[in-house]
């Protein structure tokens, strides 16, 4: 047996073929997984609720079976006291998402844990106890978003700048945050202590 034959596993052609097959195989697997994942994260599914979830109470409760907190959709609690149709809710959340993008929120905050680290994560901002109580939360959030620069945020002196957010944009942003808090994020953030929403 010649040396070349003995070292087939170290040959250029073997590794070229391996590279092609491994790449193609991985990519095909990714395509299948992508189709499956897309079917599970479209708005209106169990993991990612419909936008009209903003008509309901959203909570974040420990689930014994899964061993982490999961979003729980509760009784009707319309945002700003107004029940919306699915289309109206979708339009409002979309306006909020556009505001979040146009104001570049992600370069200070994280959303679902992704973004920058200069300001708190917004995944469960809707449920944050810092808003005080359930009764004042919506209005506090709107007022804060429209005029945050003068508010005392923390002992560090770090402040959110005024991003010229209109009242309509602020309300839509709150809708987006409420909807985002209903996404099943597999227990992220861990050990979150939500605002008390019991009557």
């Amino acid at each position, binding site marked *: 047996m010649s040396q070349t034959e003995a070292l087939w596993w170290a040959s250029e052609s073997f590794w070229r073929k391996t590279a092609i097959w491994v790449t193609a195989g991985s990519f095909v697997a990714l395509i299948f997984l992508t189709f499956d994942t897309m079917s599970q994260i479209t708005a209106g599914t169990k993991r990612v609720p419909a936008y009209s979830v903003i008509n309901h109470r959203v909570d974040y409760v420990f689930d014994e079976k899964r061993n982490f907190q999961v979003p729980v959709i509760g009784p009707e609690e319309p945002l700003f006291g107004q029940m919306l149709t699915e289309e109206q809710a979708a339009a409002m959340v979309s306006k909020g998402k556009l505001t979040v993008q146009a104001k570049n929120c992600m370069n200070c905050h994280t959303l679902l844990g992704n973004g920058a680290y200069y300001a*708190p994560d917004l995944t469960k901002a809707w449920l944050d106890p810092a808003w005080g109580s359930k009764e004042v939360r919506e209005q506090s959030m709107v007022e804060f978003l429209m005029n945050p620069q003068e508010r005392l945020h923390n002992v560090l002196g770090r402040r959110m700048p005024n991003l010229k957010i209109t009242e309509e944009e602020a309300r839509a942003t709150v809708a987006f945050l409420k909807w985002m808090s209903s996404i099943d994020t597999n227990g992220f953030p861990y050990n979150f202590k939500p605002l008390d929403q019991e009557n």
Partner: protein
Amino acid sequence: MAALGVLDGANLNGGQKLAVKYFTVAFILFGAQILFGLLAGLQYLNPDFLFGVLDFSVNRMVHINALVVWLLFGFIGSVYWLLEDEAGSPVVGIKLGNLIFWIFTLAVAAVVVVYLVVQIGPGEKSSIWLINEGREYIEAPRWADIGIVVCVLVFFFNVVATFTKGRYTGIGGVLVLDLVALAGLYLAGMFYTPNISVDQFWWWWVIHLWVEATWEVMVGCLMAYALIKTLGVRRKIVETWLYIEVALMFGSGILGLGHHYFWIGTPEYWFTIGGFFSALEPIPLVAMVVHAVFDSGAHKMKNNNHPVLGWTIAHAFGNFFGAGVWGFMHTLPQINLFTHGTQWTPSHGHLAFFGAYATIVIAFFYLAMQKWRGNVWMSGNMAGDWKWKWSLALLHIGMIGMVMGMLVAGYQQSFIERAIEGSTWMGYFTAQAHPWFLQGMWWRQIFGWVFAAGYVLLAWDLLTIGKRETRPIAVLHGDASPATA
């Protein structure tokens, strides 16, 4: 050919003349990245600094966008650098390539000016199209996205046409397939959806599959070329290694994408897939270290360009530690639950981008300067060779210092903000105000200045290295000729 030691365009082929233009812009953007990083870092220490003028979000956006674009320019430049040499044929559409270079550069300048002056827009689609898309790393407005795709397609056409007209080497073949993926993946980020889970799913296709797959393969090609050029390593060995790296890189990196799908609304099976495959991601990086170190040893470190070999070895180790070790440290979901979105991420991000990508592009800067000055001697006993050694040292000391500062801050944040306080607003600021966190931020800033000093020295060295050198490039004994297909 002009006299040795004199900067003369006649020393370069057509592709290389275009390459040095890309390198020049890349280097300037590297400086911008450092500058805006320093400003953003200062705002952690003094939040009133530039408040309402250049807010943290603006500085941070320019910092990371300059990073992406300078590396992209560096890669495009590097490919144009090696293209004629590898293909054995002049670049087919060099005039078009030049035109696109100027369009691309002007577009980048326009985007940055809008970032700095306009900054934000109303919550409407027009803002996304004209000002800022508001999605980390790919903030460029949609008009610029379309421009980037056109520029990359022209670049792709030039690469394919040149290899097709000349010859396809192993490096050339891998490069072309990699560029198909690189250009195609960018399209995955060019749409709007109100659904943030769907948004982030596809956003990661661009970010992860660029950075942890196609860019890695790109630098594999660049390293292969650099080793052939500076050490005279046999092409057959280098290209076999390249295929091994591609198999391991794509084999682990494509499904390793799953480590970004733990917490964004995606199903739980990504825990297993993402955890398993991303845990394998360091393996190709080990292969690259073995490859680079083995080849250097086999050639008894005899090489014709000390700075290039230095930065290539730095690349192999930096890639392994930054992308491999630092990535692996927090890639499993069991730890990522606590580290995701804390200072762990930038600690890893800084070391990985620097170690894996900045280093190899800097190596190509040195390759370019050597030939631009008429293929001068760049081995032992160079005049002023302390400069490249000290800039390499300062950039590394600065980077490692920053990375460690952020890592300490990240540890503390994971425990206090995440595990104990549960990531509420109050929990976040309790951790941010903790002395351990603040110390980390101070160290990050101090080492940021060290890094900046390394950059200044690097600029000085690149402008002066080989100047008035009278000796020609060292002769290597090795078979580096392209394989005839």
